[in-house]
Protein backbone atom coordinates (compact mmCIF):
# COMPACT_ATOMS: atom_id res chain seq x y z
CA UNK A 1 0.00 0.00 0.00
CA UNK A 2 2.90 2.21 -0.69
CA UNK A 3 1.04 4.10 -3.38
CA UNK A 4 -1.98 4.62 -1.16
CA UNK A 5 -1.40 8.29 -1.08
CA UNK A 6 -2.24 8.48 -4.73
CA UNK A 7 -5.81 7.63 -3.86
CA UNK A 8 -6.09 10.34 -1.28
CA UNK A 9 -7.03 13.60 -2.85
CA UNK A 10 -4.09 15.89 -2.85
CA UNK A 11 -4.79 19.16 -1.03
CA UNK A 12 -4.49 20.87 -4.37
CA UNK A 13 -7.66 19.17 -5.42
CA UNK A 14 -9.36 21.90 -3.46
CA UNK A 15 -9.24 23.69 -6.76
CA UNK A 16 -12.06 21.38 -7.76
CA UNK A 17 -14.25 22.88 -5.03
CA UNK A 18 -16.58 24.65 -7.47
CA UNK A 19 -17.11 21.42 -9.34
CA UNK A 20 -17.82 19.52 -6.16
CA UNK A 21 -20.15 22.25 -4.97
CA UNK A 22 -21.98 22.13 -8.28
CA UNK A 23 -22.45 18.39 -8.00
CA UNK A 24 -23.74 18.71 -4.46
CA UNK A 25 -26.01 21.53 -5.47
CA UNK A 26 -27.43 19.54 -8.35
CA UNK A 27 -28.23 16.64 -6.07
CA UNK A 28 -29.73 18.93 -3.45
CA UNK A 29 -31.95 20.62 -5.99
CA UNK A 30 -33.00 17.24 -7.32
CA UNK A 31 -34.01 16.04 -3.88
CA UNK A 32 -35.80 19.24 -2.93
CA UNK A 33 -37.58 19.12 -6.25
CA UNK A 34 -38.84 15.64 -5.53
CA UNK A 35 -40.73 16.99 -2.54
CA UNK A 36 -41.85 20.35 -3.83
CA UNK A 37 -42.92 19.50 -7.34
CA UNK A 38 -45.47 17.01 -6.12
CA UNK A 39 -46.95 19.37 -3.60
CA UNK A 40 -46.82 23.02 -4.47
CA UNK A 41 -48.30 24.07 -1.17
CA UNK A 42 -45.75 22.33 0.98
CA UNK A 43 -43.72 24.17 3.57
CA UNK A 44 -40.56 23.23 1.74
CA UNK A 45 -41.80 24.97 -1.37
CA UNK A 46 -42.47 28.01 0.72
CA UNK A 47 -39.09 28.16 2.38
CA UNK A 48 -36.84 26.46 -0.15
CA UNK A 49 -38.25 26.45 -3.65
CA UNK A 50 -35.91 24.49 -5.92
CA UNK A 51 -35.58 27.27 -8.47
CA UNK A 52 -34.42 29.84 -5.94
CA UNK A 53 -32.23 27.27 -4.30
CA UNK A 54 -30.60 26.58 -7.65
CA UNK A 55 -30.06 30.23 -8.52
CA UNK A 56 -28.75 31.16 -5.09
CA UNK A 57 -26.52 28.12 -5.06
CA UNK A 58 -25.15 29.01 -8.45
CA UNK A 59 -24.46 32.53 -7.28
CA UNK A 60 -22.55 31.10 -4.35
CA UNK A 61 -20.51 28.87 -6.62
CA UNK A 62 -19.91 31.81 -8.90
CA UNK A 63 -18.59 33.77 -5.96
CA UNK A 64 -16.37 30.88 -4.96
CA UNK A 65 -15.01 30.45 -8.45
CA UNK A 66 -14.34 34.18 -8.73
CA UNK A 67 -12.49 34.24 -5.46
CA UNK A 68 -10.40 31.28 -6.58
CA UNK A 69 -9.51 33.03 -9.77
CA UNK A 70 -8.76 36.17 -7.83
CA UNK A 71 -6.47 34.31 -5.47
CA UNK A 72 -4.72 32.72 -8.39
CA UNK A 73 -4.20 36.12 -9.94
CA UNK A 74 -2.86 37.52 -6.71
CA UNK A 75 -0.46 34.65 -6.47
CA UNK A 76 1.07 36.03 -9.62
CA UNK A 77 2.96 33.86 -12.03
CA UNK A 78 3.66 31.17 -9.46
CA UNK A 79 0.39 29.33 -9.36
CA UNK A 80 -0.97 29.54 -12.86
CA UNK A 81 -2.12 26.00 -13.16
CA UNK A 82 -2.72 23.00 -11.00
CA UNK A 83 -2.24 19.66 -12.65
CA UNK A 84 -4.83 17.17 -11.55
CA UNK A 85 -4.83 13.42 -11.90
CA UNK A 86 -1.51 12.61 -13.53
CA UNK A 87 -1.86 9.61 -15.80
CA UNK A 88 1.08 7.85 -14.23
CA UNK A 89 1.03 8.71 -10.55
CA UNK A 90 4.35 9.41 -9.05
CA UNK A 91 5.83 10.90 -12.18
CA UNK A 92 5.44 14.66 -11.81
CA UNK A 93 6.13 15.21 -15.48
CA UNK A 94 3.49 12.85 -16.74
CA UNK A 95 0.56 14.45 -18.49
CA UNK A 96 -2.60 14.87 -16.47
CA UNK A 97 -6.24 14.34 -17.14
CA UNK A 98 -7.16 17.82 -16.11
CA UNK A 99 -5.44 21.10 -15.53
CA UNK A 100 -7.08 23.73 -13.42
CA UNK A 101 -5.50 26.76 -14.97
CA UNK A 102 -6.80 30.29 -15.23
CA UNK A 103 -8.06 29.59 -18.69
CA UNK A 104 -10.31 26.88 -17.31
CA UNK A 105 -11.40 29.10 -14.46
CA UNK A 106 -12.25 31.89 -16.87
CA UNK A 107 -14.53 29.65 -18.88
CA UNK A 108 -15.98 28.19 -15.69
CA UNK A 109 -16.79 31.71 -14.69
CA UNK A 110 -18.59 32.28 -17.97
CA UNK A 111 -20.48 29.00 -17.64
CA UNK A 112 -21.55 29.55 -14.06
CA UNK A 113 -22.38 33.19 -14.64
CA UNK A 114 -24.41 32.23 -17.67
CA UNK A 115 -26.23 29.59 -15.68
CA UNK A 116 -27.13 32.09 -13.01
CA UNK A 117 -28.76 34.26 -15.64
CA UNK A 118 -30.40 31.29 -17.35
CA UNK A 119 -31.65 30.16 -13.96
CA UNK A 120 -33.19 33.58 -13.37
CA UNK A 121 -34.87 33.46 -16.75
CA UNK A 122 -36.25 30.01 -16.05
CA UNK A 123 -38.01 30.88 -12.83
CA UNK A 124 -41.13 32.41 -14.31
CA UNK A 125 -40.93 30.32 -17.41
CA UNK A 126 -41.23 27.04 -15.56
CA UNK A 127 -43.44 28.22 -12.73
CA UNK A 128 -45.97 29.17 -15.34
CA UNK A 129 -45.67 25.85 -17.11
CA UNK A 130 -45.59 23.85 -13.94
CA UNK A 131 -43.01 21.28 -14.88
CA UNK A 132 -40.60 19.19 -12.95
CA UNK A 133 -38.43 22.02 -11.75
CA UNK A 134 -36.20 19.92 -9.53
CA UNK A 135 -35.00 17.79 -12.41
CA UNK A 136 -34.79 20.78 -14.68
CA UNK A 137 -32.53 22.78 -12.41
CA UNK A 138 -30.43 19.82 -11.44
CA UNK A 139 -29.83 19.02 -15.11
CA UNK A 140 -28.99 22.66 -15.73
CA UNK A 141 -26.47 22.57 -12.92
CA UNK A 142 -25.08 19.26 -14.16
CA UNK A 143 -24.64 20.83 -17.57
CA UNK A 144 -22.81 23.73 -15.96
CA UNK A 145 -20.62 21.30 -14.08
CA UNK A 146 -19.88 19.59 -17.37
CA UNK A 147 -18.77 22.85 -18.93
CA UNK A 148 -16.41 23.59 -16.08
CA UNK A 149 -14.93 20.13 -16.54
CA UNK A 150 -14.70 20.53 -20.31
CA UNK A 151 -12.77 23.70 -19.84
CA UNK A 152 -10.22 21.97 -17.63
CA UNK A 153 -9.83 18.72 -19.55
CA UNK A 154 -6.47 18.01 -21.09
CA UNK A 155 -6.96 14.41 -22.07
CA UNK A 156 -9.12 12.98 -24.81
CA UNK A 157 -10.86 10.74 -22.31
CA UNK A 158 -11.90 13.55 -20.03
CA UNK A 159 -12.75 15.75 -22.98
CA UNK A 160 -14.98 13.09 -24.43
CA UNK A 161 -16.62 12.29 -21.12
CA UNK A 162 -17.32 15.86 -20.10
CA UNK A 163 -18.52 16.84 -23.55
CA UNK A 164 -20.91 13.91 -23.51
CA UNK A 165 -21.99 14.88 -20.03
CA UNK A 166 -22.85 18.32 -21.31
CA UNK A 167 -24.56 16.93 -24.38
CA UNK A 168 -26.71 14.42 -22.55
CA UNK A 169 -27.97 17.08 -20.17
CA UNK A 170 -28.57 19.45 -23.06
CA UNK A 171 -30.53 16.89 -25.09
CA UNK A 172 -32.92 16.38 -22.23
CA UNK A 173 -33.22 20.08 -21.51
CA UNK A 174 -33.97 20.85 -25.15
CA UNK A 175 -36.79 18.32 -25.13
CA UNK A 176 -38.01 19.42 -21.75
CA UNK A 177 -41.41 20.82 -22.75
CA UNK A 178 -43.01 17.45 -22.90
CA UNK A 179 -46.40 18.28 -24.27
CA UNK A 180 -44.87 20.52 -26.88
CA UNK A 181 -44.17 18.85 -30.18
CA UNK A 182 -41.69 21.50 -31.25
CA UNK A 183 -39.66 20.94 -28.14
CA UNK A 184 -39.70 17.18 -28.63
CA UNK A 185 -38.54 17.57 -32.18
CA UNK A 186 -35.90 20.01 -31.03
CA UNK A 187 -34.64 17.46 -28.55
CA UNK A 188 -34.62 14.67 -31.10
CA UNK A 189 -32.76 16.69 -33.69
CA UNK A 190 -30.26 17.87 -31.20
CA UNK A 191 -29.78 14.35 -29.95
CA UNK A 192 -29.36 12.71 -33.34
CA UNK A 193 -26.96 15.28 -34.71
CA UNK A 194 -25.11 15.37 -31.43
CA UNK A 195 -24.75 11.63 -31.18
CA UNK A 196 -23.51 11.33 -34.74
CA UNK A 197 -21.10 14.18 -34.21
CA UNK A 198 -19.73 12.69 -31.04
CA UNK A 199 -19.33 9.29 -32.73
CA UNK A 200 -17.39 10.93 -35.54
CA UNK A 201 -15.30 12.85 -33.03
CA UNK A 202 -14.65 9.68 -31.09
CA UNK A 203 -13.48 7.96 -34.22
CA UNK A 204 -11.11 10.82 -34.83
CA UNK A 205 -9.88 10.55 -31.27
CA UNK A 206 -9.25 6.85 -31.67
CA UNK A 207 -7.19 7.62 -34.75
CA UNK A 208 -5.21 10.24 -32.86
CA UNK A 209 -4.58 7.69 -30.18
CA UNK A 210 -3.37 5.27 -32.79
CA UNK A 211 -1.05 7.74 -34.44
CA UNK A 212 0.47 9.15 -31.28
CA UNK A 213 0.02 6.38 -28.74
CA UNK A 214 -1.55 8.60 -26.15
CA UNK A 215 -4.75 10.34 -25.23
CA UNK A 216 -3.13 13.19 -23.34
CA UNK A 217 -3.07 16.38 -25.35
CA UNK A 218 0.50 17.24 -24.53
CA UNK A 219 1.65 13.77 -25.53
CA UNK A 220 -0.41 13.97 -28.69
CA UNK A 221 1.35 17.21 -29.46
CA UNK A 222 4.73 15.54 -29.20
CA UNK A 223 3.47 12.51 -31.06
CA UNK A 224 2.25 14.56 -33.98
CA UNK A 225 5.50 16.49 -34.06
CA UNK A 226 7.46 13.30 -34.49
CA UNK A 227 4.93 11.18 -36.33
CA UNK A 228 6.36 9.45 -39.41
CA UNK A 229 5.45 11.08 -42.70
CA UNK A 230 3.41 8.05 -43.59
CA UNK A 231 0.92 9.08 -40.95
CA UNK A 232 0.65 12.77 -41.86
CA UNK A 233 -2.55 12.29 -43.81
CA UNK A 234 -3.98 10.09 -41.09
CA UNK A 235 -3.30 12.72 -38.49
CA UNK A 236 -4.91 15.36 -40.65
CA UNK A 237 -7.96 13.18 -41.14
CA UNK A 238 -8.17 12.49 -37.43
CA UNK A 239 -8.00 16.18 -36.56
CA UNK A 240 -10.67 16.97 -39.12
CA UNK A 241 -12.96 14.34 -37.63
CA UNK A 242 -12.39 15.72 -34.15
CA UNK A 243 -13.09 19.21 -35.45
CA UNK A 244 -16.36 17.95 -36.88
CA UNK A 245 -17.43 16.84 -33.42
CA UNK A 246 -16.39 20.12 -31.86
CA UNK A 247 -17.97 21.97 -34.75
CA UNK A 248 -21.25 20.47 -33.74
CA UNK A 249 -20.99 22.00 -30.28
CA UNK A 250 -20.09 25.33 -31.80
CA UNK A 251 -22.73 25.01 -34.51
CA UNK A 252 -20.19 25.61 -37.24
CA UNK A 253 -21.47 25.37 -40.77
CA UNK A 254 -21.88 22.60 -42.04
CA UNK A 255 -22.45 21.03 -38.63
CA UNK A 256 -25.04 23.60 -37.70
CA UNK A 257 -28.14 21.94 -39.15
CA UNK A 258 -29.54 21.15 -35.74
CA UNK A 259 -29.15 24.65 -34.39
CA UNK A 260 -32.04 26.67 -35.80
CA UNK A 261 -34.72 24.07 -35.14
CA UNK A 262 -33.36 23.25 -31.74
CA UNK A 263 -33.06 26.89 -30.83
CA UNK A 264 -36.59 27.52 -31.95
CA UNK A 265 -38.16 24.49 -30.33
CA UNK A 266 -36.27 24.26 -27.06
CA UNK A 267 -37.53 26.10 -23.99
CA UNK A 268 -36.22 29.63 -24.48
CA UNK A 269 -34.00 29.69 -21.39
CA UNK A 270 -32.36 26.55 -22.71
CA UNK A 271 -31.94 28.15 -26.08
CA UNK A 272 -30.09 30.90 -24.29
CA UNK A 273 -28.02 28.35 -22.42
CA UNK A 274 -27.11 26.47 -25.58
CA UNK A 275 -26.20 29.58 -27.47
CA UNK A 276 -23.96 30.95 -24.76
CA UNK A 277 -22.75 28.47 -22.16
CA UNK A 278 -22.61 25.44 -24.39
CA UNK A 279 -20.72 27.44 -26.98
CA UNK A 280 -18.31 28.66 -24.36
CA UNK A 281 -17.55 25.01 -23.65
CA UNK A 282 -17.02 24.45 -27.34
CA UNK A 283 -14.55 27.32 -27.50
CA UNK A 284 -12.71 26.23 -24.41
CA UNK A 285 -12.18 22.75 -25.77
CA UNK A 286 -11.38 23.73 -29.35
CA UNK A 287 -8.81 26.18 -28.05
CA UNK A 288 -7.24 23.62 -25.80
CA UNK A 289 -7.24 20.83 -28.34
CA UNK A 290 -5.81 22.91 -31.15
CA UNK A 291 -3.54 25.03 -29.04
CA UNK A 292 -1.81 22.43 -26.94
CA UNK A 293 -2.79 19.22 -28.70
CA UNK A 294 -2.21 19.77 -32.37
CA UNK A 295 0.95 21.48 -33.56
CA UNK A 296 0.98 23.44 -36.78
CA UNK A 297 3.76 22.19 -39.02
CA UNK A 298 6.69 24.57 -38.88
CA UNK A 299 10.43 24.62 -38.90
CA UNK A 300 10.51 21.31 -40.68
CA UNK A 301 8.77 19.59 -37.80
CA UNK A 302 5.65 17.59 -38.35
CA UNK A 303 2.16 18.63 -37.41
CA UNK A 304 -1.29 19.07 -38.74
CA UNK A 305 -2.27 22.11 -40.71
CA UNK A 306 -5.57 22.84 -39.03
CA UNK A 307 -5.22 26.52 -39.78
CA UNK A 308 -6.74 26.47 -43.22
CA UNK A 309 -9.47 24.07 -42.14
CA UNK A 310 -10.56 26.35 -39.33
CA UNK A 311 -10.22 29.41 -41.55
CA UNK A 312 -12.49 27.86 -44.16
CA UNK A 313 -14.99 26.82 -41.50
CA UNK A 314 -14.97 30.32 -40.04
CA UNK A 315 -15.52 31.89 -43.45
CA UNK A 316 -18.49 29.77 -44.45
CA UNK A 317 -19.92 29.82 -40.95
CA UNK A 318 -20.09 33.58 -40.67
CA UNK A 319 -21.31 34.06 -44.21
CA UNK A 320 -23.99 31.43 -44.27
CA UNK A 321 -25.17 32.22 -40.75
CA UNK A 322 -25.62 35.84 -41.69
CA UNK A 323 -27.25 35.34 -45.04
CA UNK A 324 -29.81 32.93 -43.68
CA UNK A 325 -30.49 35.10 -40.65
CA UNK A 326 -31.75 37.86 -42.91
CA UNK A 327 -34.85 35.98 -43.94
CA UNK A 328 -35.90 34.79 -40.49
CA UNK A 329 -39.20 35.91 -39.03
CA UNK A 330 -38.93 34.20 -35.69
CA UNK A 331 -36.61 36.01 -33.34
CA UNK A 332 -35.29 32.83 -31.75
CA UNK A 333 -34.34 31.51 -35.16
CA UNK A 334 -32.83 34.83 -36.09
CA UNK A 335 -30.73 34.81 -32.94
CA UNK A 336 -29.80 31.21 -33.69
CA UNK A 337 -28.39 32.09 -37.06
CA UNK A 338 -26.79 35.22 -35.73
CA UNK A 339 -25.06 33.18 -33.07
CA UNK A 340 -23.82 30.85 -35.78
CA UNK A 341 -22.31 33.84 -37.52
CA UNK A 342 -20.79 35.16 -34.31
CA UNK A 343 -18.91 31.91 -33.83
CA UNK A 344 -17.36 32.49 -37.22
CA UNK A 345 -15.98 35.83 -36.04
CA UNK A 346 -14.71 34.41 -32.78
CA UNK A 347 -12.81 31.65 -34.56
CA UNK A 348 -10.72 34.33 -36.22
CA UNK A 349 -9.31 35.03 -32.78
CA UNK A 350 -8.29 31.40 -32.48
CA UNK A 351 -6.52 31.54 -35.83
CA UNK A 352 -4.77 34.77 -35.03
CA UNK A 353 -3.73 33.53 -31.62
CA UNK A 354 -1.09 31.39 -33.28
CA UNK A 355 0.93 34.55 -33.85
CA UNK A 356 -0.77 37.52 -32.29
CA UNK A 357 -0.78 38.19 -28.57
CA UNK A 358 -4.19 39.80 -28.96
CA UNK A 359 -5.82 36.71 -30.40
CA UNK A 360 -6.50 34.62 -27.35
CA UNK A 361 -7.55 37.53 -25.11
CA UNK A 362 -9.71 38.70 -27.99
CA UNK A 363 -11.46 35.37 -28.22
CA UNK A 364 -12.02 35.34 -24.49
CA UNK A 365 -13.26 38.91 -24.35
CA UNK A 366 -15.63 38.17 -27.19
CA UNK A 367 -17.02 35.05 -25.53
CA UNK A 368 -17.30 36.88 -22.23
CA UNK A 369 -19.14 39.79 -23.80
CA UNK A 370 -21.23 37.45 -25.85
CA UNK A 371 -22.54 36.00 -22.61
CA UNK A 372 -24.08 39.32 -21.68
CA UNK A 373 -25.32 40.44 -25.05
CA UNK A 374 -26.89 37.20 -26.18
CA UNK A 375 -28.34 36.36 -22.79
CA UNK A 376 -29.64 39.90 -22.59
CA UNK A 377 -31.36 39.55 -25.93
CA UNK A 378 -32.87 36.25 -24.87
CA UNK A 379 -34.00 37.79 -21.61
CA UNK A 380 -36.10 40.26 -23.54
CA UNK A 381 -37.38 37.50 -25.81
CA UNK A 382 -38.46 35.44 -22.81
CA UNK A 383 -39.99 38.37 -21.00
CA UNK A 384 -41.98 39.34 -24.04
CA UNK A 385 -43.14 35.93 -25.13
CA UNK A 386 -44.40 35.44 -21.59
CA UNK A 387 -46.66 38.41 -22.14
CA UNK A 388 -47.44 38.34 -25.85
CA UNK A 389 -47.14 34.62 -26.43
CA UNK A 390 -45.26 35.14 -29.65
CA UNK A 391 -41.68 34.92 -30.82
CA UNK A 392 -42.34 36.41 -34.21
CA UNK A 393 -40.36 39.53 -34.96
CA UNK A 394 -43.55 41.19 -36.12
CA UNK A 395 -44.99 40.92 -32.64
CA UNK A 396 -42.31 43.39 -31.54
CA UNK A 397 -44.04 46.18 -33.43
CA UNK A 398 -44.33 49.36 -31.44
CA UNK A 399 -42.62 47.90 -28.42
CA UNK A 400 -41.19 51.29 -27.56
CA UNK A 401 -44.62 52.58 -26.67
CA UNK A 402 -45.51 49.46 -24.71
CA UNK A 403 -42.31 48.90 -22.82
CA UNK A 404 -39.47 51.39 -23.26
CA UNK A 405 -37.28 49.33 -20.97
CA UNK A 406 -37.49 46.24 -23.13
CA UNK A 407 -37.20 48.19 -26.35
CA UNK A 408 -34.17 50.22 -25.34
CA UNK A 409 -32.31 47.35 -23.73
CA UNK A 410 -32.97 45.00 -26.62
CA UNK A 411 -31.71 47.69 -28.96
CA UNK A 412 -28.53 47.96 -26.94
CA UNK A 413 -28.04 44.19 -26.94
CA UNK A 414 -28.53 44.09 -30.68
CA UNK A 415 -26.13 46.97 -31.16
CA UNK A 416 -23.63 45.06 -29.11
CA UNK A 417 -24.16 41.94 -31.18
CA UNK A 418 -23.65 44.05 -34.28
CA UNK A 419 -20.43 45.37 -32.78
CA UNK A 420 -21.31 49.05 -32.52
CA UNK A 421 -19.34 50.99 -29.88
CA UNK A 422 -19.33 51.68 -27.04
CA UNK A 423 -20.52 48.20 -26.18
CA UNK A 424 -18.59 45.13 -25.22
CA UNK A 425 -19.50 43.60 -28.56
CA UNK A 426 -17.42 46.24 -30.27
CA UNK A 427 -14.52 45.57 -27.95
CA UNK A 428 -14.63 41.87 -28.74
CA UNK A 429 -14.73 42.47 -32.46
CA UNK A 430 -12.01 45.06 -32.18
CA UNK A 431 -9.70 42.66 -30.42
CA UNK A 432 -10.45 39.70 -32.62
CA UNK A 433 -10.14 41.58 -35.87
CA UNK A 434 -7.20 43.52 -34.55
CA UNK A 435 -5.38 40.32 -33.73
CA UNK A 436 -6.03 39.05 -37.23
CA UNK A 437 -4.62 42.23 -38.71
CA UNK A 438 -1.60 41.83 -36.49
CA UNK A 439 -1.26 38.22 -37.59
CA UNK A 440 -0.48 39.39 -41.07
CA UNK A 441 -1.84 39.69 -44.53
CA UNK A 442 -2.77 36.04 -44.68
CA UNK A 443 -5.78 36.76 -42.51
CA UNK A 444 -6.74 40.09 -44.00
CA UNK A 445 -9.23 38.68 -46.49
CA UNK A 446 -10.96 36.81 -43.68
CA UNK A 447 -11.20 39.98 -41.64
CA UNK A 448 -12.59 41.86 -44.60
CA UNK A 449 -15.18 39.13 -45.03
CA UNK A 450 -16.00 39.27 -41.34
CA UNK A 451 -16.45 43.02 -41.45
CA UNK A 452 -18.65 42.78 -44.51
CA UNK A 453 -20.68 40.23 -42.62
CA UNK A 454 -20.93 42.58 -39.67
CA UNK A 455 -22.52 45.13 -41.94
CA UNK A 456 -24.96 42.54 -43.24
CA UNK A 457 -25.80 41.55 -39.70
CA UNK A 458 -26.79 45.12 -38.93
CA UNK A 459 -29.54 44.75 -41.48
CA UNK A 460 -31.36 42.00 -39.65
CA UNK A 461 -30.59 43.25 -36.17
CA UNK A 462 -31.99 46.62 -37.12
CA UNK A 463 -35.03 44.93 -38.57
CA UNK A 464 -36.01 44.17 -34.99
CA UNK A 465 -35.16 47.70 -33.96
CA UNK A 466 -37.28 48.97 -36.83
CA UNK A 467 -40.25 46.96 -35.61
CA UNK A 468 -39.84 48.19 -32.09
CA UNK A 469 -39.43 51.86 -32.85
CA UNK A 470 -40.92 52.64 -36.23
CA UNK A 471 -44.00 50.46 -36.35
CA UNK A 472 -47.26 51.19 -34.61
CA UNK A 473 -48.09 48.95 -31.69
CA UNK A 474 -50.80 46.36 -32.07
CA UNK A 475 -52.06 47.04 -28.59
CA UNK A 476 -51.64 49.74 -26.03
CA UNK A 477 -51.10 47.46 -23.06
CA UNK A 478 -47.99 48.24 -21.15
CA UNK A 479 -45.56 45.38 -20.60
CA UNK A 480 -43.33 45.28 -17.59
CA UNK A 481 -40.81 42.64 -16.63
CA UNK A 482 -41.07 40.42 -13.61
CA UNK A 483 -38.47 40.93 -10.95
CA UNK A 484 -36.34 37.91 -11.92
CA UNK A 485 -36.32 39.00 -15.55
CA UNK A 486 -35.54 42.56 -14.54
CA UNK A 487 -32.54 41.45 -12.55
CA UNK A 488 -31.22 39.40 -15.44
CA UNK A 489 -31.86 42.30 -17.79
CA UNK A 490 -30.00 44.80 -15.69
CA UNK A 491 -27.07 42.48 -15.13
CA UNK A 492 -26.73 41.91 -18.85
CA UNK A 493 -27.11 45.59 -19.58
CA UNK A 494 -24.47 46.48 -17.04
CA UNK A 495 -22.26 43.82 -18.57
CA UNK A 496 -22.34 45.20 -22.08
CA UNK A 497 -22.03 48.83 -21.06
CA UNK A 498 -19.56 48.67 -18.20
CA UNK A 499 -17.16 46.41 -20.03
CA UNK A 500 -17.73 48.37 -23.20
CA UNK A 501 -16.86 51.72 -21.70
CA UNK A 502 -14.33 50.67 -19.11
CA UNK A 503 -12.84 47.50 -20.56
CA UNK A 504 -9.43 47.49 -18.93
CA UNK A 505 -10.32 45.06 -16.10
CA UNK A 506 -11.89 42.63 -18.52
CA UNK A 507 -8.90 42.86 -20.83
CA UNK A 508 -6.50 42.31 -17.96
CA UNK A 509 -8.50 39.33 -16.83
CA UNK A 510 -8.54 37.86 -20.31
CA UNK A 511 -4.80 38.42 -20.68
CA UNK A 512 -4.02 36.80 -17.36
CA UNK A 513 -6.20 33.85 -18.21
CA UNK A 514 -5.14 33.43 -21.78
CA UNK A 515 -2.28 31.06 -21.18
CA UNK A 516 -3.38 27.53 -21.92
CA UNK A 517 -1.68 24.60 -20.28
Amino acid sequence: MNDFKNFIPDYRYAVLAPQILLAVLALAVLVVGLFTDRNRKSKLEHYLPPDYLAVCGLVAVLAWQSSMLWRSLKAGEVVQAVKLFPTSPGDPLSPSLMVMDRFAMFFSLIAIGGSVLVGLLSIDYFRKRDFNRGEYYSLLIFATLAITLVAASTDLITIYLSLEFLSLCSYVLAAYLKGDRKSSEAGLKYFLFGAVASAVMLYGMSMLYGVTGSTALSAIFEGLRTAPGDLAATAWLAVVLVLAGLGFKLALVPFHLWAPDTYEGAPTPITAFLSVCSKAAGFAVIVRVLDIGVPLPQNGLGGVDWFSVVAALAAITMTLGNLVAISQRNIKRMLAYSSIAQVGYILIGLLAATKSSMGMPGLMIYVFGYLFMNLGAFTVVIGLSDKTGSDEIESYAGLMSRSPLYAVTLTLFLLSLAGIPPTVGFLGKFYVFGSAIEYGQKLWPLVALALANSVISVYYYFNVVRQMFFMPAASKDRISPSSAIAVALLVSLAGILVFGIYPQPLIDLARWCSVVF
Partner: protein
Amino acid sequence: MQPINCYLGVSAILFCIGLFGVMTRRNAVGILMSIELMLNAANLNLVAFSAYGPKHGLTGQVFAVFVITIAAAEAAVGLAIVVNLYMNAKHVNVDQVNLMKW
Protein backbone atom coordinates in the same frame (compact mmCIF):
# COMPACT_ATOMS: atom_id res chain seq x y z
CA MET B 1 -1.85 -12.57 -34.49
CA GLN B 2 -3.28 -10.72 -37.43
CA PRO B 3 -1.59 -7.48 -38.34
CA ILE B 4 -3.31 -4.52 -36.76
CA ASN B 5 -4.39 -3.25 -40.15
CA CYS B 6 -6.95 -6.03 -40.37
CA TYR B 7 -8.68 -4.74 -37.27
CA LEU B 8 -8.47 -1.19 -38.49
CA GLY B 9 -10.03 -2.28 -41.78
CA VAL B 10 -12.93 -3.93 -39.99
CA SER B 11 -13.32 -0.80 -37.92
CA ALA B 12 -13.33 1.43 -40.98
CA ILE B 13 -15.95 -0.72 -42.66
CA LEU B 14 -18.08 -0.76 -39.54
CA PHE B 15 -17.80 3.01 -39.20
CA CYS B 16 -18.88 3.61 -42.77
CA ILE B 17 -21.77 1.20 -42.48
CA GLY B 18 -22.86 3.18 -39.45
CA LEU B 19 -22.46 6.42 -41.33
CA PHE B 20 -24.48 5.05 -44.19
CA GLY B 21 -27.22 3.95 -41.81
CA VAL B 22 -27.31 7.36 -40.16
CA MET B 23 -27.87 8.99 -43.49
CA THR B 24 -30.46 6.57 -44.82
CA ARG B 25 -32.50 5.36 -41.89
CA ARG B 26 -35.86 6.98 -41.57
CA ASN B 27 -36.74 6.29 -38.02
CA ALA B 28 -34.88 7.54 -35.04
CA VAL B 29 -34.28 4.14 -33.47
CA GLY B 30 -32.67 2.99 -36.68
CA ILE B 31 -30.38 5.98 -36.65
CA LEU B 32 -29.50 5.28 -33.05
CA MET B 33 -28.52 1.73 -33.99
CA SER B 34 -26.28 3.06 -36.72
CA ILE B 35 -24.67 5.43 -34.25
CA GLU B 36 -23.95 2.49 -31.97
CA LEU B 37 -22.17 0.82 -34.89
CA MET B 38 -19.98 3.88 -35.28
CA LEU B 39 -19.16 3.88 -31.59
CA ASN B 40 -18.21 0.23 -31.82
CA ALA B 41 -15.94 0.99 -34.72
CA ALA B 42 -14.14 3.60 -32.64
CA ASN B 43 -13.89 1.19 -29.74
CA LEU B 44 -12.40 -1.46 -31.95
CA ASN B 45 -9.69 1.01 -32.94
CA LEU B 46 -8.98 1.86 -29.35
CA VAL B 47 -8.72 -1.73 -28.25
CA ALA B 48 -6.64 -2.74 -31.25
CA PHE B 49 -4.13 0.05 -30.74
CA SER B 50 -4.09 -0.73 -27.07
CA ALA B 51 -3.28 -4.36 -27.74
CA TYR B 52 -0.58 -3.77 -30.33
CA GLY B 53 1.09 -0.61 -29.32
CA PRO B 54 4.33 -0.71 -27.40
CA LYS B 55 3.57 2.70 -26.00
CA HIS B 56 -0.16 2.72 -26.35
CA GLY B 57 -0.62 0.86 -23.11
CA LEU B 58 -3.94 0.24 -21.55
CA THR B 59 -5.31 3.71 -22.21
CA GLY B 60 -7.26 2.52 -25.20
CA GLN B 61 -9.08 -0.09 -23.19
CA VAL B 62 -9.79 2.39 -20.43
CA PHE B 63 -11.20 4.76 -23.02
CA ALA B 64 -13.30 1.96 -24.48
CA VAL B 65 -14.82 1.18 -21.10
CA PHE B 66 -15.91 4.77 -20.77
CA VAL B 67 -17.25 4.82 -24.29
CA ILE B 68 -19.41 1.82 -23.56
CA THR B 69 -20.71 3.52 -20.44
CA ILE B 70 -21.51 6.66 -22.34
CA ALA B 71 -23.14 4.67 -25.10
CA ALA B 72 -25.50 3.17 -22.57
CA ALA B 73 -26.36 6.55 -21.13
CA GLU B 74 -26.78 7.95 -24.60
CA ALA B 75 -29.07 5.15 -25.64
CA ALA B 76 -31.21 5.67 -22.56
CA VAL B 77 -31.57 9.39 -23.14
CA GLY B 78 -32.04 8.98 -26.87
CA LEU B 79 -34.71 6.38 -26.55
CA ALA B 80 -36.47 8.47 -23.92
CA ILE B 81 -36.52 11.35 -26.35
CA VAL B 82 -37.83 9.08 -29.07
CA VAL B 83 -40.60 7.77 -26.85
CA ASN B 84 -41.43 11.31 -25.84
CA LEU B 85 -41.69 12.41 -29.44
CA TYR B 86 -43.87 9.43 -30.16
CA MET B 87 -46.22 10.46 -27.39
CA ASN B 88 -46.49 13.93 -28.92
CA ALA B 89 -46.39 13.24 -32.60
CA LYS B 90 -47.29 9.55 -32.97
CA HIS B 91 -44.34 8.87 -35.19
CA VAL B 92 -40.61 8.71 -34.90
CA ASN B 93 -39.60 9.30 -38.47
CA VAL B 94 -36.96 11.88 -38.92
CA ASP B 95 -38.12 13.07 -42.31
CA GLN B 96 -41.42 13.91 -40.72
CA VAL B 97 -39.68 16.17 -38.26
CA ASN B 98 -38.25 17.97 -41.26
CA LEU B 99 -34.79 17.23 -40.15
CA MET B 100 -33.01 18.81 -43.04
CA LYS B 101 -34.93 22.01 -42.90
CA TRP B 102 -32.80 25.11 -43.00
